[in-house]
């Protein structure tokens, strides 16, 4: 578990630091995708969530869903290329779940990766997580979660 400037960033997940997204590899080879606690802190309370449709193939770094907080809208980008296998009905009903539990019940989509071994080279995990986010927070001028 890493904590950077008060933001919880579990180091067993795979991150695209620039896009502020995480992926977790499940036992069956699928991925669960979500926003980082840092992204949630920047966004504030999320009030809307519109995922891409189940079955859709999404390229790495293209949008898997769009979230909105106040008037702020942003895409959440696929950490790797793959097919969307599930979206989260609990988050659709209560988008604030993303803020409350970004690594648990606030997950955004599940994906079946097309080429995990190739695409995941662009992601960071383990000890590199804390240093990667610390550099990003410095560049963003972010005070803390």
């Amino acid at each position, binding site marked *: 578990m890493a904590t950077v400037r008060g933001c919880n960033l579990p180091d067993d997940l795979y991150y695209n630091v*620039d*896009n502020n997204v995480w992926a977790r590899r499940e036992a069956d080879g699928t991925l669960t995708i979500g926003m980082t606690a840092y992204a949630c802190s*920047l*966004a*504030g309370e999320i*009030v*809307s*969530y*519109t995922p891409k449709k189940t079955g859709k193939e999404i390229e790495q770094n293209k949008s898997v869903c*769009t979230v*909105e*907080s*106040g*008037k*702020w*809208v*942003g*895409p959440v*980008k696929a950490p790797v290329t793959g097919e969307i296998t599930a979206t989260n009905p609990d988050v*659709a*009903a*209560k*988008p*604030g779940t993303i803020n409350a539990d970004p690594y648990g019940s606030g997950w955004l989509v599940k994906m079946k990766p097309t080429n995990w071994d190739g695409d995941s080279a662009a992601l960071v995990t383990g000890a590199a997580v804390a240093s990667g986010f610390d550099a990003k927070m410095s560049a*963003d*001028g*972010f005070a803390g979660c």
Partner: protein
Amino acid sequence: MPDRMNRPVWRLLDTGTRRAAENMAMNRALLTGRQQNVSPDTIRFLAFEPSALLGYHQSAEQELNMARCHELGVAIQRRITGGGAIYMDQGQLGWELYLDRKAAGSAEMSVIARRVCEAAAGGLQQLGVPAAYRPRNDIEVNGRKISGTGGAFDGDALMYQGTLLIDLDVERMLSVLNIPAGKLSDKAIASARERVTSLSALLPELPSRQHIVEVLAMAITDAFGVTAEPGGLNAAEQALYEQALAEIDSPDWIDMVQKPAHDRPVLSAEHKFPAGLLRVNVAWDRQQERIRQVWFSGDVFVSPARTLVDLESHLRDTLADRMPEAVRTFFDGRQVDMLGLQPDDIAGLLRQALQQEETA
């Protein structure tokens, strides 16, 4: 005069009056272009043929009077940004910034909103209008909105956009948008006019569009310590634009979010207080149990008069169970005279409106 030599240069892009689909495609193309580093930092000015623009997550069925839109030839489109539905025509001047996060100076939405809105308000002041920033996203003149704004991030690229009301057809706006103002009537029109204003309502003589563009561009670029030079789209942006237009100028994009109208009812309550009659209409999100928009009316005495409009703005997108606390927070530390009307009375009236939902 400030020294403008040696400052970074933004592109000044004026795309004139266009169809809504074309303007939305331009939003997507320039934001993506900035993110891919094929676009320079840009300030853009634009206008719309008559259109009703949904927020990214909204559905036309819930937010618009679609029959009226078709009847009046008002195009229906979906923005790439959030917030509520708006009506646009040639009476509004749109302005937009496309910036790298570094040029924006912050990753925090509230910091950027304040900086941009205060700069734009400064420009309006130069035109002779006492405009000021109203958090979170508005520019107002004595409590009446003259410019609404909002933004979107894509990676490290920011788009921040606003609309300046030069002239507004309130009746037409109310007839195409499902604003919870009540049925279209003289009262509803008068009540809307209390909330918005325009350059033509405030100035004895309307400046030319070109003059407004120049003053706003100067005010905003000065605030960011840059200058602007006119330019057009480059080839990479033109390709992104055509790609975006193919996606956006289609029913699939416009109908991307479809929610039944009955899941966003307008709930109402009214009560005669010693301070006068207070009526409240609430645009209610049944699925999320969230207040989307509140509209107060009646003849209740409140000083300063803008208090209830500010409260409407404060209560946007509030979850029902957080409403009483949100009302209390709003009045904390504020000097308001309401002839004995208490914040809890207002929360009580809102609760009464929401209770209709439970009994329905």
